């Protein structure tokens, strides 16, 4: 039942080390009130049990999990899952031989890595016809990128931005969503103010949140509100008047093209649409533009803490300690709002490799699907089928449920989504190309789930392999259906 390589507690720490520089044990975290509250908040999200039971279990697990990330290969697997879509045996071995700093550099400095092999594989998307590509084409295209890219963090950050600065095919057209996706990729680790200025003029966003209709004398509040509520400060840091005045400031930008606005990918500034009057926003008055609003919102501490918290929760674990959020917010502000600097810092924290971070995230359907396809192989038709199969798992690419994006975490797991996750693993394993020689149980678990499995899982896989020695696809399916693989 126990984790196989549970090692003794990590090395002692000195009191002067700030919390984010120390390996964090679950027990230490529970001893602090704030983190206890974080665990409680996570626990009540889950409908199936009562709180006291869950907290007891957290305490029990402290012992079993403390040494989770002392093994270099486990650390490499953890980073490759978080900064990308999981590693192959070769990639895990290569990263395991590096220092933590070198691993971080290898993940982050992807600009130096050629993606020519991927570019050669990707299908051409038709952007020239009036309607551009269809939804399935861009969904399959992005999934293929996640599976075959040589720059996994670039795709992972694109996924992060898609979930934060949301737009969706329920309003925007596929060509627009493709252009937005390429914007996120290009500015994946850019300065946040630059990214927000670009997003404010992005055709998909302009359709999704109605800025393309926002005109002088006819303000439309949709984008102005979500820019503050969801993209920057969060609720509680602005007034309804700020929403109205911000909407006036974002007038002037619209889309150029025919009546079918969802097929238009060109934005333009039309001076006569711009409300050039005085606006009063957050206590300041002037003839503000949308860019001015972004420049006032991004430096706010609430923005720094909110974005830092979102990034840490995306990469490490939910409900980060206030000390960690403050530290990352400082990093964000001192780096002129540079997202790459914050991400680099997250991967440098001991907290990222702590027991608390290990398997602390549920694989999103995008992560699950991409990792399954990396393990089983997929051809061109396979990407489209797999992209469609993500819908019943709860995440259809380019179709977030609403402007707040996917809620994630425990909400990925319910009776319906779990059956679909397991069924997809089965179908993918059955249609995938068999690798030769077929991997053993130990090789499968080492590369897919760090070799850290319960005795039930290990014994069950060995028993299956003994009874069905020729059913390699079946064994691969079983490994992909494990509870260990559902977590990231």
């Amino acid at each position, binding site marked *: *039942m*126990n984790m196989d390589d549970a090692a003794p507690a990590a090395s002692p720490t000195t009191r002067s080390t700030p919390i984010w520089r120390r390996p964090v044990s679950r027990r230490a975290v529970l001893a602090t009130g704030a983190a206890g509250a974080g665990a409680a*908040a*996570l*626990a*009540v999200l889950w*409908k*199936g*049990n009562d709180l006291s039971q*869950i*907290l007891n*279990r957290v305490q029990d*697990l402290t012992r079993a999990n403390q040494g989770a990330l002392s093994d270099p290969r486990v650390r490499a697997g953890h980073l490759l899952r978080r900064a990308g879509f999981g590693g192959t045996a070769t990639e895990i071995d290569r990263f395991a031989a590096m220092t933590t700093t070198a691993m971080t550099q290898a993940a982050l400095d992807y600009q130096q890595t050629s993606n020519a092999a991927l570019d050669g594989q990707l299908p051409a998307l038709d952007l020239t016809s009036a309607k551009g590509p269809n939804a399935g084409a861009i969904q399959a295209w992005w999934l293929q990128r996640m599976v075959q890219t040589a720059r996994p963090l670039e795709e992972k950050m694109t996924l992060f931005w898609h979930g934060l600065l949301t737009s969706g095919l*329920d309003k925007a057209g596929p060509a627009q969503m493709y252009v937005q996706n390429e914007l996120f990729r290009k500015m994946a680790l850019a300065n946040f103010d630059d990214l927000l200025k670009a997003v404010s003029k992005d055709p998909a966003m302009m359709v999704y949140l*109605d800025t393309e*209709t926002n*005109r002088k*004398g*006819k303000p*439309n*509040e*949709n984008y102005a*509100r979500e820019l503050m*509520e969801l993209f920057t400060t969060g*609720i509680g840091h602005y007034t*309804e008047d700020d*929403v109205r005045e911000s909407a006036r400031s974002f007038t002037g930008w619209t889309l150029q093209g025919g009546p079918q606005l969802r097929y238009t990918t060109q934005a333009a500034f039309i001076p006569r649409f711009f409300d050039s009057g005085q606006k009063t926003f957050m206590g300041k008055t002037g003839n503000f533009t949308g860019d001015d609003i972004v420049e006032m919102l991004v430096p706010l501490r609430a923005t720094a803490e909110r974005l830092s918290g979102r990034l840490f929760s995306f990469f490490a674990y939910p409900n980060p300690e206030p000390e960690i959020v403050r530290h990352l917010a400082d990093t964000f502000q001192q780096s002129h709002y540079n997202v790459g600097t914050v991400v680099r810092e997250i991967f440098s924290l001991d907290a990222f490799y702590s027991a608390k971070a290990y*398997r602390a995230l*549920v694989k999103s359907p995008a992560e699950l699907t991409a990792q399954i396809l990396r393990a089983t192989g997929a051809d061109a038709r396979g990407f489209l089928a797999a992209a469609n199969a993500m*819908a*019943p*798992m709860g995440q259809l690419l380019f179709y977030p*449920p*609403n402007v*707040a994006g996917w809620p994630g975490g*425990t909400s990925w*797991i*319910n*009776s*319906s989504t*779990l*059956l679909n996750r*397991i*069924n997809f693993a*089965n179908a993918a394993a*059955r249609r995938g190309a068999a690798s030769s020689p077929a991997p053993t149980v130990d090789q499968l678990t080492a590369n897919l789930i760090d070799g850290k499995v*319960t*005795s*039930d*899982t290990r014994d*069950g896989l060995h028993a299956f392999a003994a009874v*069905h020695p020729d*059913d390699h696809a*079946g064994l691969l399916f*079983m490994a992909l259906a*494990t*509870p*260990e693989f*559902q*977590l990231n």
Partner: protein
Amino acid sequence: MFSRRDFMKQGLVPVFAGSAVPSIFANGVAAAAADSPHAIPNGRILVLVQLAGGNDGLNTLIPFQDGAYHDARPTLRQDTGVLTLNNQLGLHPNLKGLKASWDAGQLAIVQGVGYPSPNLSHFASMSIWETASVQGGIGDGWLGRYLNYLDQVGESPNHALEGVSAGSLVPPELRSKTPVTALQSLSAFRLQAVNEHGTQVDEENPIMKFYGGFKTSGPAPFGALLDTTLQEALLASHALQATDATYQAKATYPAKSPIASSLKLVAETIVSGLGVRVAHVTLGGFDNHAREKPVHDKLLLDLDQALAAFMQDLTGHGYGDKVLVMTWSEFGRRVKENGSAGTDHGTAAPMFLLGAPVKGGLYGEQPSLNALDNGNLKFTTDFRSVYASVLQGYLNAPASELLGGSYEILPLLKA
């Protein structure tokens, strides 16, 4: 005695033999599947229809005689075809099915529903409605608390199908301490364990063991969540597959209509007699900041046609007097339309309660269009008063306990 292979031939997910049988399989589903609706002590079923994005209440229940409405809605007003309820108010022209229910005394409309200090954020306001708390938050939903109550008083089969939602996510209203099932289709709701070579129907057995072992040694809360969820899923799947072949819709549901598909799935689950107590469906797309009219007209048409088929189907199966449908939306829209032929976020809006259990008619008070708060309607009935009326008057549950406060009970429902 069935072998596993026999189960598979019949399209059933096998019940596991031997020591790996989870105790949850020993009761619940088999018993629940055998229950007729009449065997449930309080067999009443509530179906929530969420109009996500903020439905334009003024263009749903229309004050067609009010000059202020015409002035505020130069392009969006409904000038013709309003289905009049009295000399002031009428339903949107596309709500013909609801108008028929009104004429039959089976539609109650509560006017001007909202809450104090309205929040214009979709997500904050949804959370307020979902938890029935003006603080919102991530606690159990108001109907989740009702499911908890059913378990406490032993009036529930306590299995995964007492709360169902159509879709891939469990909605926050149903967040509870008891299992709730998200359904997308009955045929897909099963573990496809037979491989293409037709062998190994026993594959599920070790998978269940994997999850059982991970329950205690996996990281909290995921270890237990994954195990419980898989058990729930197989339990519900087993019960559903057993009834899959017997359901025949007794109404024609509109094609290519997601809300109709959702309601049909709920009807199928209800009439299969699996002990559904609350169900949830969502119709999204109401956040019409721009070019509202064609979009909103279509949404109301889809809603109306889907509800009409749903009620006909349930009635045909003898469930007509056991099901209450209630609509809600996180807010209405701004009274004055914006410059994009749309409407921005607003406040109060009407709620519809539909079905044989209701006492038809208008309730509450229509908010004045001439006494606005920042351009928004002032609510006249607290939404928790509607919830309390349904909990107490229909579900026979202790409303003030479940809502954490006492609210006026409206005489919306027959005894």
